């Protein structure tokens, strides 16, 4: 599963170096103010027997505690920007295997690429549709196709990926213009590091479950903010 938690380490180190070199009270204050924070927590799903989520079993391994996998967690607004410390572009692979896309959800930064592969014996197709990109290629057995995604749609404008030959195949690609995003693994945990202090929207989207939750968070310099998110059928879009 692709997880991106890029941190502006270079900038932090530079600030620290400047602060130490200056060794004055003003520099120290600047360092403290600019020190990034962390937002971490766990995303769980609270089931409602009256409104069962039929496909929840694919994403929730521990029914009693409800840790939710494949949820996209990202910050939005505030001081987020695609600074000059962007890591080299990556290529994430989405395989077509056993008539499904694996992984079903991918999170990348603008400029990253996705390599689509077909591990099935059948011919598939990759149809990407959305406001920020489109693609329609045939995928013969064993074939591959790599596409770069330069425009970011963030958490609110994911790209929907399908196969025109097999309509049940579905996938989503979320493209961000900042590094503060993550896809939750099976334990539902997320940790967004290197967050500039400030006020943000912490947004959680589960595309397959059609679930969305937003929450205002204040990230303090050098602090770790722990935010547990409990999603329920009330969060259905």
């Amino acid at each position: 599963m692709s997880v991106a938690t890029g941190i502006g380490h270079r900038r932090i180190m530079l600030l620290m170096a400047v602060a130490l070199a200056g060794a004055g009270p003003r520099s120290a204050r600047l360092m403290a103010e600019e020190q990034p924070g962390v937002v971490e927590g766990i995303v769980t799903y609270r089931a409602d027997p009256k409104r069962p989520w039929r496909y929840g079993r694919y994403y929730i391994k521990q029914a009693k505690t409800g840790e939710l996998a494949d949820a996209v967690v990202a910050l939005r607004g505030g001081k987020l920007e695609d600074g000059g410390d962007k890591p080299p572009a990556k290529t994430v692979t989405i395989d077509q295997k056993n008539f499904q896309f694996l992984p079903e959800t991918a999170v990348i930064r603008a400029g990253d690429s996705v390599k689509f592969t077909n591990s099935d014996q059948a011919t598939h197709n990759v149809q990407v549709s959305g406001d920020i990109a489109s693609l329609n290629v045939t995928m013969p057995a064993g074939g591959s196709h790599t596409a770069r995604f330069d425009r970011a749609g963030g958490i609110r404008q994911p790209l929907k990926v399908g196969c025109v030959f097999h309509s049940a195949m579905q996938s989503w690609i979320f493209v961000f213009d900042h590094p503060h995003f993550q896809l939750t693994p099976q334990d539902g945990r997320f940790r967004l590091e290197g967050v500039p202090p400030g006020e943000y929207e912490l947004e959680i989207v589960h595309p397959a479950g059609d679930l969305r939750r937003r929450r205002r968070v204040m990230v303090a310099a050098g602090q770790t903010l722990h935010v547990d998110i409990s999603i329920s059928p009330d969060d259905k879009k």
Partner: protein
Amino acid sequence: MLEYSPSRRELLKTGMASVATGMALMSLPEFIFAGQAADEELVPFQNVPRSTPNSLDWETLTEWLTPQDQVFSVQHYGIPEVNAAKYELEIAGLVERPQKLTLEAIRALPKQDQFMTLECSGNGSSPGFSNAVYNSRWTGTPLAPLIKECGVKAGAIEVVFFGHDRKSETLRPGTPRELTVEVPFGRSLSLDDTLKLNLLLGYERNGEPLAQRTGAPVRLIVPGWYGIANVKWLRRIEIRDRRYMGRYMGRDYVTVRGERQGSEVVFVESSVTRMNLKSAIARVTRRPAVDGKVPLKAYGAVWSDGTPIAKVDVQLDGGDWRAAKLDEQPLEKHSWRFFSIELGSVAAGKHTLVSRGIDANGHIQPSAKDDEIALKKTYWEAYQQWPREISVEA
């Protein structure tokens, strides 16, 4: 005529109530079969893709009448918008008294229920298309009396059912005789079948008006025939003296199969019509391991063209076929029957299960290696056995 009897209603309600009680007690898993024990846990299939909305979710198959959010729909000419208020169904062609019927007029005619499992003939042709089957209570009015009332003229042999959906079709593409014409979607039945098969002009499914994607306001219901015969968005019923050869009668939905004639294999093209005997394991559950062995149970469904089901066998890891327990109720001629089987305890690791239906005529659902499937060159009528792979941990 089938009646929706109080006992059946009561039965279904009871079934749903037991499911609801189970849900309340357990909170999760959210889906259980009626009769499933509280300590049974789903063992996910390893060779089946995740289910998606608007198709049958096998592993959570709990309801004999399929909920609307699990109903598949396939259309070849798009989904037309048909205004129910202005709807008119035409019965024309070789009849003494052609008719035009509004939806109101159709609803005012004698009402009949038809329980029926409807399957796409391509269902099961690949792991990516094995959820296109559902069971319903269709409500409508019988068509045969209407046809007779119109006075069928001498020479009539065929009844064509045209939908509101239209598209351009190109015949003999790439040849000097290429021809492109816009045609309505159509399928036909012989006049004899039309009068004998207890067809309905269906306007409700499970007590609700038809959804647009499943043929609103009126679709044809053909008990025991594959989905393609159940023409949606019905516009015109035309009685003719020639065989109709629209694309979906004459070119597509034509099964090409090799048949052994002596030492020769002869390929024969036949129309996709009646449903074939078919069964599938819907889900496998496990109980806590005892001495390192895991008790397994399988649940599933079996259906046919209306030919009574005699038996369902289940095979585990290539062993002997063992008879599953067929549910006594609900029991309707054209609807699926659920079955279950205790498989005993297995060692941790990978296992393969498969079911086969056997009908009252002794016909056995074939495996993919049997001639009737192995020599079939087209994907329609994919009624072979469906092996399910699982992996269990002690």
